[in-house]
């Protein structure tokens, strides 16, 4: 607690004096509040806890890290204003965007104008981080467009017994729709028949009509890649209609808790982060840190932010002191961070690939016999070219 006040006081003091700083300044614009906050706020809380710990242990290269965390409520104009402030007033050497994709364009514009590397942590990775990558944009987020669908359909192909009639459920936001349309396109490659693609507007009181359509079309597998609320409500609606087949969906932050709540053996979640029931040493480490910091969010939702913290630490370490944005960028272009089991493999960045060289997936489900979450398919990867 005292550390938090100290860091805060330092942040205020440093923010006040726009000149000489004796710390690494990392600027963040994030959707801490607003409708999509439940995705990004836990990640930023985890990042804060991680950096606080780093600072307590002496900092990086002997210097503390100053996180300037600004809320943009997923509004593009606020994100742009935040970026302007971070680049001009706070003099950040590394920028982070943990917000909705609608805030990307203004943040990218500002980062480019100020030539400061921009890391996306929590929001979907923009196209520019895939090879050939834009020099300034990097991404640590777990989920990835097109790769996720491939990973998911690969799993379905391996696990399904017999003919697969695939149903797809998306939320009526461009990202989810686009991904599900992509899945629809590649389904024939796997030999699947597509029962239908349901695009569901977010504020729907009753998901039953959409589930009815999927059920009537005879889907025996349903894959959904959307914000968790759409995924889980479609699933629950299908179950209420007495649809007893398999449902595969993306493992968002809430997945672990929800698997335990729903206790359904045919609900599979595919994700890039390992679940905490694996109880690896790193999970215990995170649990302890979270408990000590008295965080608002459960430890299971902290992976994304913790990974971002590890990457930032490595990047700043590589940049040395005194650090400039150019040095940080250079450090990030040849970065390899061991995630200690939080993901299937390390995060590896090269000059051309700012996403990662291999994208790993794992599939979990609930097991009634063991009364626990088990691994349905262990780590498998796709090369990112």
């Amino acid at each position, binding site marked *: 607690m005292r550390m938090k006040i100290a860091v805060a006081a330092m942040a*205020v003091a440093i923010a006040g004096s726009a000149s000489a700083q004796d710390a690494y300044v990392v600027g963040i614009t994030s959707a801490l509040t607003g409708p999509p906050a439940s995705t990004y706020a836990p990640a930023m809380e985890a990042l804060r806890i991680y950096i606080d710990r780093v600072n307590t242990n002496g900092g990086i290269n002997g210097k503390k890290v100053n996180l300037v965390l*600004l809320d943009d409520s997923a509004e593009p104009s606020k994100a742009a204003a935040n970026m302007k402030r971070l680049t001009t007033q706070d003099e950040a050497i590394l920028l982070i965007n943990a917000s909705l*994709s609608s805030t*990307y*364009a203004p943040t990218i*514009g500002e980062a480019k104008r100020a030539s400061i590397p921009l890391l996306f942590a929590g929001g979907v990775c923009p196209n520019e981080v895939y090879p050939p990558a834009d020099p300034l944009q990097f991404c640590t987020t777990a989920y990835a467009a097109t790769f996720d669908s491939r990973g998911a359909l690969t799993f379905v192909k391996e696990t399904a017994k017999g003919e697969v009639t695939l149903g797809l459920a998306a939320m009526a936001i461009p990202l989810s729709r686009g991904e599900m349309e992509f899945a629809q396109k590649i389904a024939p490659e796997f030999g699947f028949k597509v029962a239908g693609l349901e695009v569901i507007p977010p504020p729907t009181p009753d998901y039953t009509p959409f589930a009815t359509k999927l059920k009537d079309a005879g889907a025996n597998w349903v894959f959904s890649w959307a914000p968790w609320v759409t995924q889980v409500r479609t699933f629950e609606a299908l179950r209420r209609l007495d649809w007893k087949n398999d449902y595969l969906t993306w493992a968002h932050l809430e997945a672990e808790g929800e698997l335990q709540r729903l206790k359904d053996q045919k609900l599979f979640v595919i994700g890039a982060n390992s679940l905490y029931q694996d109880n690896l040493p790193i999970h215990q480490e995170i649990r302890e840190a979270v408990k000590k910091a008295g965080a*608002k969010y459960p430890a299971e939702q902290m992976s994304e932010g913790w990974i971002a913290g590890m990457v930032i630490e490595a990047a700043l370490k590589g940049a040395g002191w005194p650090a400039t944005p150019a040095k940080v960028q250079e450090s990030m272009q040849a970065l390899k961070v061991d995630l200690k089991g939080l993901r299937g493999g390390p995060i590896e960045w090269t000059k051309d690939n700012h996403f990662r060289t291999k994208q790993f997936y794992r599939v979990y489900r609930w097991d009634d016999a063991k009364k626990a979450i088990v691994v349905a398919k262990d780590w498998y990867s796709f090369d990112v070219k």
Partner: protein
Amino acid sequence: MSRVPPRTSGYFRTGYGQDFRLIETRWRRVSAALFSLALLVFPFLVGGYYLDLANQVFLASIGALSLMLLTGYAGQISLGHAGLLAAGAFTVGILFKEWNAPFWIALPAAAFVGAMLGVVFGLPSLRLRGLYLAISTLALHFVVVYVGGEYQTERGDYTGIIIDAPSLFGYSIVSPRLWYFVLLFFAAAALFICINLLRSRTGRAWRALRSNETVAAALGIGVAWNKLLAFVISSAMTAVAGALFAYYRGFVSVEAFSLFLTIQYVAMIIIGGMGYLLGAVLGAVFVTLLPYAIEAIMSALPGAQAYAGIIFAVNYAAFGLVMILFLVFEPLGLVGIWHRLQNYFQQWPFKNRPLAGSK
């Protein structure tokens, strides 16, 4: 009468030529000159952050002025403001994306699209009044936003359409300072258009419409024509504001045009003071800067980082609260407060005291 005392209250016009003057007294002339000078010097004195705030205020004031024309003067309640802003922004986005249209084509095109939409938004006003008109504009807003969203998805612009900086006479308008002057020009132009429109026949017709439609019709004012005109002009201006907004942010995305945006603009004209152009400007300043002020206050408190998560909620709550306070206690808005302030100083040392027994 050529020698008018510097600060007066009264009517001193003695010739038709003087009727056209915007500024009558010497005091007003001097303060207007000082204010313009301050506006012109401002960008050279402050950093990028405050320049961005000023730019946002200018953008907001154009939209607020157009809404004030429609609702404050012509009396047509419109809750579809965000839809019109979206229309202007999407026009620019689509023209840029599909045909790489330059600034000086896209902006008038946006105005044109706004005008056309204004006809659509205005048609219900011929049959409906008050609440029902507001509801119809609300419904139209949802339809416009839906169409915009469909376009974005069809074209695969999930994260929004990115627009290049506009270029005028070969200069690319990118730096905040340059934007400041461009937006200052547009805001001032909008303000003068509004002032002149209101001093003209159309403005008088609108005022009559707002007071009492039946009497206006009896006086020979074309009710349908003037209502549609109000919608068309206001929508054209709003679309231009949306287009400028798109150029300034460099991108267009449907998520930015929610119902809350409409509520913000309505709050601007209410908090500013309905029926006064100054109210639109003051309201724009107030509503735009309120969130930043709250953030500044909250970050000055101890334990600031812990509050970062709830600033949004505090903003929302404060916004609603301020709007309620103005609606309940100060129906004339900031302009009312301004006038009271002016009266106080003008009548000093006399005070405005209500008659005994009247409250």
